[in-house]
């Protein structure tokens, strides 16, 4: 009865099912995004909440909308933000590349082992997630600090005479990011490489290509979707990473996540913090969406793989 009534107004089971993810995104992405966007156009003031409202009624008749672009102008004028953006993108880019260089051989090796061993290895890749992320980053402090595990081990082996400063350096940040995000690189790569039809490699060998040529001409190009997925999963969170540079990095290291935190909590300048966040989103999401679209168009409307 109800189903028939719903159908009459054009709602079927199918639309209801597809509505669930849309509703989820609306509730937890679009609405917060609009709120942040709104705040980014207002002006900071000491109040609760600490920004001016965007809309105001004049004489209770005219709705006045005040859009304040000063926050965005400020981002361009003050080169602190530019440097933070560029540095974040650079750090995230290098980390992604290192993750790819470590993760690809690992994913490849896992995909080529016997199925029984494969599950054990995959479990080991995911195992660190059973410990809290924050705890694992703290553990790196214990490893990297001047009288930490690594320095003590190197000194007792006689390789170095005095501790190397590793904590609070860029090196520590790279270690932290690569360590934390490596599984996100391995898993999509593994999912891709595991599907590879091995007869394609036999065909390549049959047509005269040596194993490494087969890898470059068959395996690698066919794993591009996995590479892209892995890189996006590492790069996007790494750009906005806040915890790792704060705990492991040099206090002076400019990362956009830290800048955002400072604006929001220390300066209590919500509008500028929001503008920073919106700009970051535009910087990252738009090129990525454009790229994905181009990919889909090339592979035939995204229907074929």
């Amino acid at each position, binding site marked *: 009865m109800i189903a028939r009534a719903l159908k009459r107004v054009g709602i079927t089971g199918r639309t209801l099912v597809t509505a669930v993810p849309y509703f989820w995104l609306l509730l937890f992405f679009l609405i917060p995004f609009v709120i942040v966007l709104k705040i980014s156009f207002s002006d900071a003031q000491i109040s609760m909440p600490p920004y001016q409202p965007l809309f105001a009624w004049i004489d209770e008749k005219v709705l006045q909308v005040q859009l304040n672009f000063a926050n965005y102008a400020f981002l361009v004028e003050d080169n602190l933000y530019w440097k933070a953006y560029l540095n974040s993108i650079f750090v995230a880019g290098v980390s992604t590349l290192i993750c790819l260089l470590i993760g690809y051989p690992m994913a490849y090796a896992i995909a080529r082992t016997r199925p029984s061993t494969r599950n054990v290895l995959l479990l080991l890749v995911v195992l660190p997630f059973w410990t809290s992320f924050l705890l694992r980053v703290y553990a790196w402090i214990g490893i990297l600090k001047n009288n930490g595990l690594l320095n003590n081990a190197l000194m007792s082996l006689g390789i170095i005479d005095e501790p190397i400063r590793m904590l609070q350096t860029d090196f520590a940040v790279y270690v932290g990011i690569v360590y934390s995000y490596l599984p996100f690189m391995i898993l999509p790569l593994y999912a891709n490489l595991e599907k590879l039809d091995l*007869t394609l490699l036999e065909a390549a060998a*049959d047509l005269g*290509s040596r194993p490494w*040529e087969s890898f470059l001409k068959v395996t690698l190009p066919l794993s591009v979707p996995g590479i892209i997925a892995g890189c996006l999963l590492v790069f996007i969170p790494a750009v906005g990473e806040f915890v790792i540079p704060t705990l492991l990095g040099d206090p002076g290291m400019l990362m956009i996540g830290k800048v955002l935190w400072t604006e929001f909590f220390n300066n209590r300048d919500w509008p500028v913090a929001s503008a920073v966040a919106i700009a970051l989103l535009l910087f990252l999401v738009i090129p990525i969406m454009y790229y994905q679209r181009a990919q889909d168009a090339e592979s*035939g409307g995204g229907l074929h793989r």
Partner: protein
Amino acid sequence: MATSPRDNQVRFEPWKDPDAQPYVRIERVTKKFGDFVAVDDVTLDIYKKEIFCLLGASGCGKTTLLRMLAGFERPTQGRIFIDGVDVTAMPPYERPVNMMFQSYAIFPHMTVEQNVAFGLKQDRVAKAEITKRVGEMLDMVKLGQFAKRKPHQLSGGQRQRVALARALVKKPKLLLLDEPLAALDKKLREHTQFELINIQETLGVTFIVVTHDQEEAMTLSTRIGLMNHGEIVQVGTPTEIYEYPSSRFVAEFIGSVNMFEGRLTEDEPSYVRIGSDDLEQPIYVDHGVSSAPGATVWAAIRPEKMQMSREQPAGPDNWTAATVQDIAYMGDLSIYLLRLASGKVVRVTQPNAARHADERITWDERVYLSWDPTSPVVVTK
């Protein structure tokens, strides 16, 4: 059973020429996977320009043998020679052999053109030469206008031709085909069989084809190697395999056959008589049989070589009474299942030469079944 188009041609029988050098020589090759013997002591000579079919049920070792020829598997024992060169330990990328895979294994990220050019690029052939040869090959398999397409935009038959073109463009000495037609529907398969033969004759390449489809093997091949449990059971032309099977297995594998178990009651150099419990009259065969006296033998008679009649045949041999149990009308012929007094069911095919069915033998009729003395094949194993 389809007849080979080769039958009308000049006899091509290099295997009967004692001076002919085999092009591919498989010498006592055994392949084991753990305890499982996939290929068991196979020795086989294949000559230039042959289409040699390895025929057998799945798991009989035919694909393993083909993969050893391609170099994907190493024999546990034995040697393989191609054109006089020992290739036993040669990796696939150095062998003068190309393979057409059952799944076609077309590179999905390359266009048709790039797929076909792949092997030539590996060989560092000059660009102009690659373009020319790829173009010629695509024209040959009638894919000229599909050169820029990606594999997912092609039909099954077109993909099959891409795979063929890619394997042939390198002008291999030997082309290995693993179930080349299995993925095609029946009409396309028949058409492609003849196309394959034409291409093979134009290029003069030696083909080794693996198939489980006996009809495909009969149509394509100059010779068939029938395999069972890793062994070659019989090698011969399609006619030899069908008309002169060397064992019960071969007779029963190829086509359908009525097998009568019996004993030699008369054993002369020019004829034999076989008594079978299933038949009322003995089987008379017009040639001698080499068998121990009193040993069990089997007489195999093909369904199309038996006749039915309402009158009792003259003479003391080669007939028996039967009851029609079932008839399957196939259009061009009808299959009769006849029950003998012993309970054994015999299969007989009759061509439907006349259109009117009034005179035909029908269900539950009592008939006499007879055959010529030349028809039975006597096998001892």
